[in-house]
């Protein structure tokens, strides 16, 4: 199979859909000639023209409001936020309009839109351009939340998001844009709410999201050499969450480590840990659940400190060993 980058997979998913479906268009800051802050839409203006690749003023609130309005009137907009940190400006449109309207009008209207936005640290972009705020939107009923970790997943999940009749918040990780993977040329669909077991194991379950999926897999390889057999699960979508796959895995391993880049306090890891504690898997837990997340501070600008702010492979190895009393 052909290998392309995560970034190319995002672009390909949108282009293929736009060729088929006249209702799909993209709006965002500098997505036209410039190709977007990370170059995701580069070349698309030439193919689809300025009507469908729409540059907007620097107002996230206006972008989101336009997306909600056009979705209500039958379009299927994809809005791009340059950095996921800027969702703060769009929040009223997303939380009070996009998430609520279908419910409040008894299904007479719907908001089929995708909000694509890059999140995460590791690029030296400092505190206002490095956050992982996905837990905020998972709290709002009416929004679906997607966090793909591989090129294959990002294409199939974006297709599913564009097909969905509800607003989907689609997080792309900045450091993953350049990672490569095997991606089919044709369109395909990965259902929202279906986790992926990235690695099978029997001793400990790691549930990791976005870039942490890769660190968890590296940690698992290292632990394998010490005879520790780790299962790595990528939920892929936080809302809806594939609880069944996680519960089944923890029932098998009896141990759970949850890893995400977002600040640990109030992070989505707390939701996953609580879900397990309330579930059938409780009786199979053989060690306290561990959560790894970002430090409770703004993301530092110093590269060393920025690295220390988020869980690294060594932290995951250590946490797994602790749950096995082998630290």
């Amino acid at each position, binding site marked *: 199979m052909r290998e392309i980058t995560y970034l190319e997979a995002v672009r390909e998913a949108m282009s293929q859909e736009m060729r088929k479906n006249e209702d799909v268009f993209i709006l965002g800051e500098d997505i036209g000639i410039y190709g977007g802050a990370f170059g995701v839409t580069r070349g698309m203006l030439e193919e689809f023209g300025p009507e469908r690749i729409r540059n907007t003023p620097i107002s996230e609130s206006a972008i989101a409001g336009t997306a909600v309005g056009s979705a209500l009137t039958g379009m299927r907009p994809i809005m791009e936020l340059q950095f996921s940190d800027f969702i703060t400006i769009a929040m009223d449109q997303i939380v009070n309009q996009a998430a609520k309207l279908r419910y409040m009008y008894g299904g007479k209207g719907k908001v089929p839109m995708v909000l694509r936005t890059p999140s995460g640290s590791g690029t030296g972009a400092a505190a206002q351009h490095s956050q992982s705020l996905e837990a905020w939107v998972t709290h709002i009923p009416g929004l679906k939340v997607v966090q793909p970790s591989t090129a294959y997943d990002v294409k199939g999940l974006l297709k599913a998001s564009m097909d969905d009749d509800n607003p989907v918040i689609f997080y792309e990780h900045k450091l993953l844009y350049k990672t490569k993977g095997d991606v089919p040329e044709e369109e395909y669909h990965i259902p929202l709410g279906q986790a992926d077991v990235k690695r099978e194991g029997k001793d400990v379950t790691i549930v990791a999201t976005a870039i942490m999926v890769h660190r968890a897999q590296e940690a698992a390889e290292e632990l394998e050499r010490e005879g520790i057999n780790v299962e790595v699960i990528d939920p892929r979508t936080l809302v809806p969450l594939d609880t069944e796959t996680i519960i089944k895995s923890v029932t098998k391993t*009896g141990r759970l480590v949850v890893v995400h880049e977002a600040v640990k306090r109030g992070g989505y890891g707390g939701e996953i840990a609580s879900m397990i504690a309330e579930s059938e898997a*409780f*009786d*199979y*837990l*053989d*060690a*306290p659940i561990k959560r790894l997340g970002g430090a409770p501070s703004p993301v530092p600008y110093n590269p060393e400190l920025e690295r220390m702010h988020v869980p690294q492979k060594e932290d995951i190895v250590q946490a797994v060993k602790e749950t096995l*009393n082998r630290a």
Partner: protein
Amino acid sequence: MAKEIFMPKLSSTMEVGTLLQWFKEEGEEVEVGEPLFEIMTDKINIEVESYEEGTLLKKYNEVDDEVPVNTIIGYIGEADENVPNSAPVPESEENETDKQEEKDTSSVIGEKKEADCENGEKVRATPAARRVSREQGIMLEEVEGSGPKGRIHAMDVISSKELAQSIRHTPLAGKVADKEGVSLENVQGTGSNGKITKSDVLSASSMQVETTTQEPLEHVKLKGLRKAVADKMLESARSIPHVTLTAEVDMSAVVEVRKSLLPIIEKQTGYRLSYTEIIMTATAHVLGNHRKLNAALIDNEIVYNKSVNLGLAVAVDNGLIVPSVPNVQDKGLAELTVACKELGAKARKNKLDPVEMSGSTFTISNLGMYAIEGFTPIINPPETAILGVGQMTDKPVVRDKSIEIRPMMVLSLSFDHRAIDGAPAAAFLTELKERLENPFGLLV
């Protein structure tokens, strides 16, 4: 208004007191200054006098209860006053607990769980271990946990069951055991891989008969001073890395010194000078040059003491107490003899004040009256060293290439290797030996 009676805090290290006896019954009149009850601290027995006048209304604690300091143990007031049926928790303590809870709820919960565990009420086990124990019908109380703080994991329950089932025995041994009523768990196997044979069962069975026909043994509960000594020794031996150095000292010169000073001091004070006081004087003198040994190790800090207060281990009925002789460096031998004799006598009569038993900076334990050469004394915490004194005996020694008979004595110095290294401890003991062999140095 009824007044509380508290368990007093009599020294800085006292945390609990053991109630030895009440001198008054509930309903009896009490005067100010009358002895109300007697307690045992980590150092001493003491009678506690009443601060109030009135009627003893309530006693919350029985004899032998160990009561934390500042706990209410009773009430004094007017004869018809009402007091709570159970001892109230002091307010200050409650506040402290509140504060702690605010600070760190999780740690408080953790502590509580541990305490539960100690009381045997709750076992620390994972949900999986509990499920396995339910399914297999194994009591968690009987399983040893391998996790942190003894947490029981599922694997522990499984291996405990396997262990219980893994007693290997010959079929005949099994039959004999059934017949004789012997449990195979208590039988040591001598066959291959520890397999239990018929003869193992039979010998176990006869041993069982022997032990059951034995007289019941006398059991004495550790309490009072014995308990205090036991706790302190265990704490010291367990927490302090002890090293003991020994040195043999030629005591000829000290014998001369004592002989010439004995009548003078006896005439002046009425007490007879003993070798202990001379060793103390020399020790205080030498400690002046080796302040590391006249120190305390408290909470990862070495505290150097200014004065030399020598603790003197005194054997008493059912225990050991250590009165402290303060400022030995400033005392002449006459004054020191009086101090030592008086403290020793008080100690043996159990009349020491708590203040007379605290503040020592270095301890001397003299077993010279027994046939003991050297020994390994246990440090009196928080001190960092202790000197053991052995018996003085005439021994052949080599002097100027000929053999002479000299009164020889072994000094045993135990030191806390966290605070002191071997070389400085050896230097101290060497200088002490020189000082005793040449006491004129004490005049310098």
